[in-house]
């Protein structure tokens, strides 16, 4: 197992919307959180609790209003869009609820996309890695298919392979199984676990599904914009 190291640290993270207007609202009220490289954590909470907002902040898609967010030890709040985009591309993999592949590209090209966006034309090594990832999600035969020629579960598996191609230190999954049937959902979850163990990348899953959350090592409940407790499951390492 890879050496344990801090991947993400949140210190007093706050997020408000409509700042300076009468309808200003604070969604996150000072969140402290730390994720290590081996963590497989579930972010749970009722809708409206700020899960998506927190995930967007962690994913560097949205800047916090106050507090600091360290990704691989780097403070990020002062960064401009350009720097955040670059950091996001290198360190974070995304899996969304609605798989979201780029329809004009094949499965293999979709997997390669984060690398191509950062480094241009993929080299042989990168191609091998992408093929290997596709094989790991059981889709090596579908490399040249377009997204519309794949089932929902297959598309989500391509999306997972895509999220991992840059060897990110943190994988964020927003309801990754929300759109799938139970059996496929379990398979997708199993894949996430495998990659967590294999690459040592921290995984943070937002989910509604208590059964899935139970299988995670940590459960982070978010209620009204605050982390109420941080439970480490009995089976956690």
């Amino acid at each position, binding site marked *: 197992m890879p050496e344990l190291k801090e991947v993400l640290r949140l210190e007093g993270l706050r997020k408000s919307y409509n700042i300076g207007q009468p309808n200003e609202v604070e969604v996150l009220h000072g969140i402290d959180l730390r994720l290590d490289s081996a963590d497989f954590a579930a972010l749970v909470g009722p809708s409206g609790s700020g899960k998506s907002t927190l995930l967007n902040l962690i994913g560097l898609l949205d800047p916090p209003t106050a507090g600091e967010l360290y990704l691989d030890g780097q403070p990020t709040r002062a960064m401009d869009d350009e720097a955040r985009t670059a950091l996001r591309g290198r360190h974070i993999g995304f899996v*969304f609820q609605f798989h979201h592949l780029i329809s*004009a590209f094949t499965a293999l090209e979709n997997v390669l996309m984060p690398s191509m*966006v950062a480094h241009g034309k993929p080299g042989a090594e990168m191609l091998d890695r992408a093929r290997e990832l596709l094989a790991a999600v059981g889709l090596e035969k579908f490399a040249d298919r377009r997204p519309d020629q794949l089932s929902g579960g297959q598309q989500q598996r391509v999306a997972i392979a895509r999220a991992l191609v840059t060897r990110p230190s943190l994988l964020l999954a927003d309801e990754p199984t929300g759109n799938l049937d139970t059996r496929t959902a379990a398979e997708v979850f199993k894949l996430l676990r495998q990659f967590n163990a294999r690459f040592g990348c921290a995984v943070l899953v937002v989910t509604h599904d208590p059964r899935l959350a139970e299988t995670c090592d940590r459960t982070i409940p978010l209620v009204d914009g605050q982390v109420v407790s941080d439970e480490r499951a009995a089976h956690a390492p």
Partner: protein
Amino acid sequence: MWIESTIALRFLRHGRAQSLLILFGIAVGVAVIVFVVALISGLQSNLIERTLGTQSHIRIEAPREVNRIAPAPPGTVQLLLEDPRPQSLRPIDNWQQVRDVIERLPGVKAVSPVVSGPAFGRRGAAVESVALVGIDLARYLRVIPLQDNLVTGRLEVGSGNGMVGRQLAEDLGLRTGSKLRLDAGDGREAVINVAGIFELGVRELDERYVYVDLKQAQSLLALPGGVTVIDVTVEDVFAADATAARIRGLTGLQAESWMESNAQLMNALSSQSMSTNMISFFVAVSVALGIASVLAVSVAQRTREIGILRAMGTRRRQMLRVFLIQGAVLGLLGSAVGAVAGWSLVVAFNTFGPRLFEIDLQPMLFVAAMALATLAGMGAALVPAWRASRMDPVEAIRHA
């Protein structure tokens, strides 16, 4: 740039129906522009060529004779009745020096001194009024290409030889070798041998012109050693105006460019050019608007994919380039097809058209049209591309 162009081309290919439709639109627009511009510039150069086939670019004459009016003493009212002076045939003073000065002016190709005046041409009982033109043949040919207009006989003046217009030859029953008596009044007469018959294609000239040697014309018109006109040809026909002004300033003589003496033609030409430019401009604008609207739709359709690409680390300027490249590619491809179509139209016009004139195919026109369309495509893509690059990834991904 590799990934930006790859994404741009894939997006275009993926939205094939839209891309083909707008390509067709661009091609039609560019074909129209190419054809109209080629047609009008062909027509114009043909008109200019015809006009300048029978006249020099600049015509220099002695200043006109005007009355000098003595200034009235202050405090008095001067009532004037002016009788305009008759313009007698007057030679240009020091024409040899004037010729040498003009010859050294930049942009001047040829200078030809001419002495011309009225006379009667007689053969038997027939009399025609003619314009007697005394020329230095070698110099004159560099101004008016008479060799292209010779119908029969040879180019020769001097030693009692001369050349006459075809209409005049018909009116007086002249053939090559016939004798023509020239009478310039006051008993100055000469008989010339018709060496050649020419046809300039302008009736007035063909029924009046008689070319003789400079010396013979001088003695017939009682202007020994003098010339009445200096014809000038310049390198750039549209610079004739400026050169004429320069000559006026240098010599104090009356110098008129072909543009001034054909003011109506110039007016027609510039109106034509203006309408061509207007047509081109508005066609180009509507093509650009077409590209802009197709790309705007594409940005809206791909909002979610743009969000995903941004989440995966695509920078704003990369996103901007993706759509700028799409605009450029549409402009380039569409105009390439359009240029070929326009070229085919020109060839068809030359082959099956009225055949009054040939349209000259200028490769620069196609290059310019394609470069312009590509730039217009990028310009049109600017707003949609900007919108794509400013999209908030969170909003874009949530977009259903």
